[in-house]
């Protein structure tokens, strides 16, 4: 079968959505299908949002492919009689992040009206799909609220690659924060937690700054707080090997993203390595997964509370090791396989 896998992308930066697209591509090819990946430019400017979505509706791939799988927003605006949507999130600026003031910006004049139109369009393009899956219960719940009770089936993505062997838990006092270094991921909160903690634990932040200016801001924050001797900013893309090395020598993993859609790959990778994960109470999908798996701690989203949670877990390596093992068990026993996922996407 010829399958187009379409996914929105902000361009020039990876992340969980891109990882999922590559995973679907690999899984479909392994199952014997022909696959083309189409990256659809996504955008955050609400003033040009609706015309751009209308432009996407021009395209119908009925003649070119047997099936279209739409992943990250706004790929599901493309047309195909056999279209399956794996919904990762809405246009967040107008929906679940409407009150958030960060890199996505705050609401502009006219956005309330655009949100009303967009909700109607979302229903239109989702209703024409053969099936609509969400990547988490959090996303399904959000969609039910914002799209007039629209129901999605939850299909949590399997681990993107072969699950690596866990690293023996050796304790220590080094922790790591991985992934795209964007304001909404709150690496600055981790740095402030270092400053708020009298302990001697150290922190590595590794990932691509988005936007680049945010990396500069973090460096300034580290200098201003006088914690340069405890914080290593590795602000660049890192290889899988380097990521595994960082996880191996870390006692725990931080994942502090605000209002995350799902458990996030960072949580998954930390747990696969046998490391506990600490998040904060407003991280939504991450907190939900940690509570379900028992794979770490959930702190309040302020520096003092986060510093206390980190200090407590580092001081109790038995509990930390147990949480890491629980997370690992969740990864290996949770969810579905790629064979099953692709079968459901093409059904």
């Amino acid at each position, binding site marked *: 079968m*010829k399958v*187009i896998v379409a996914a929105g992308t902000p*361009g*020039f930066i990876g992340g969980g959505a891109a990882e999922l697209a590559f995973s679907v591509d690999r899984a479909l090819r392994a199952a014997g299908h*022909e696959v*083309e990946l*189409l*990256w*659809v*430019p996504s*955008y955050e*400017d609400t003033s*040009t949002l609706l*015309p*751009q979505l*209308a*432009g*996407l509706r*021009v*395209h*119908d*791939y009925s003649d*070119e*492919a047997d099936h279209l799988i739409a992943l990250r927003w706004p790929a599901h605006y*493309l047309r195909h009689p056999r279209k399956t949507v794996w919904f990762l999130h809405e246009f967040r600026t107008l929906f679940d992040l409407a009150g958030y003031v960060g890199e996505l910006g705050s609401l502009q004049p006219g956005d309330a009206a655009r949100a009303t139109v967009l909700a109607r369009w979302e229903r239109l393009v989702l209703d024409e799909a053969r099936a609509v899956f969400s990547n988490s219960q959090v996303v399904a719940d959000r969609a039910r609220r914002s799209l007039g009770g629209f129901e999605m089936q939850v299909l949590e993505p399997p681990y993107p690659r072969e699950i690596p062997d866990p690293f023996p838990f050796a304790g220590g006092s080094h922790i790591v924060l991985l992934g795209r270094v964007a304001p909404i991921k709150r690496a600055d909160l981790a740095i402030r937690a270092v400053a708020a903690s009298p302990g001697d634990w150290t922190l590595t932040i590794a990932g691509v700054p988005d936007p*680049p200016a945010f990396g500069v801001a973090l460096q300034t924050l580290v200098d201003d707080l006088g914690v340069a001797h405890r914080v290593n900013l590795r602000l660049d893309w890192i290889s899988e090997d380097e990521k595994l090395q960082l996880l191996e020598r870390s006692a725990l993993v931080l994942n502090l993203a605000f209002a995350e859609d799902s458990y996030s790959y960072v949580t998954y990778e930390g747990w696969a390595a046998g490391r506990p994960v600490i998040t904060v109470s407003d991280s939504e999908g991450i907190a939900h997964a940690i509570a379900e798996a028992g794979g770490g701690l959930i702190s309040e989203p302020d520096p003092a509370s986060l510093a206390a949670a980190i200090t407590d877990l580092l001081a109790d390596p038995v509990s930390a090791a147990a949480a890491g093992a629980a997370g690992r068990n969740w990864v290996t026993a949770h969810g579905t396989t790629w064979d099953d996922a692709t079968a459901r996407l093409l059904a």
Partner: protein
Amino acid sequence: MRSSERTYVATAFVPFRWRRVDAVAARLVAELRNSGIDAERLRLPVTMTEQGAAGSAAAASLVNLSWAHNVICLEFPCLHLVADRMSAFRVRGGLDDHLLRHDVVARTPASRFAPDLVEPGATAGYSSAPAWMPPGLLSIGLRDRGVITDAADRLLVVSLHESCVPVAQQTADAAPGAHMIREHGAGVDIEGPEARLWRALEGPLPGPFRAVHVVVPATDDAAPQWVPELAGADEAWTIVGPNGTQCVADSTGDPRAAWSAFASGLLP
């Protein structure tokens, strides 16, 4: 041009078909990255009916890429994108060929071209076709810029079919230091010889080479036309081998260096 600048190499999205324009785009991105430039491909959705083409152009004109630093357009409908810094290079066989007769292409504003990047002798603007069509993909700018030189006395021999191996091997054996690539295998016949040559030239080559010889079957009538331009040839000649194979040889420089210069020359 700073290495932190982000450059899109834009083509249309035409799925499940090998196209030279896609190979060019992939190679451009690789070369730009080799130069330390943050480059990515962008494939624009396109519908290839006349009405669909108009819609595709309109849709592309709604995509605002002003946040990206550079956009290099290789075919329709990429020139309709909104971008602050844009350059264009038309690749023969791209959608511009197909859509030439359509008004939508003729209406593409000529002002959106960077005139110095259009093939010498060509007139900026789609409506002037077919005179603007570059005669050879790699010919643009390379010889004029002095990139192609006799950098080394080495020979690259590319065999594109199992039946060509004896001739290719004989050629390689006769030249000291020659390097031979066998690019054939399962599925290649579906893609055609052009795809195989592209793949051969995309891999790491122990260049530079004085010349590239491409050996193709005699039954491949199109070979003399496409091989020289793909290999960046100044001139080409054809030899029909004793066993029915056809050897197309050309004098050229280092294809990798040529690509690198080609890529950097396209930056706005």
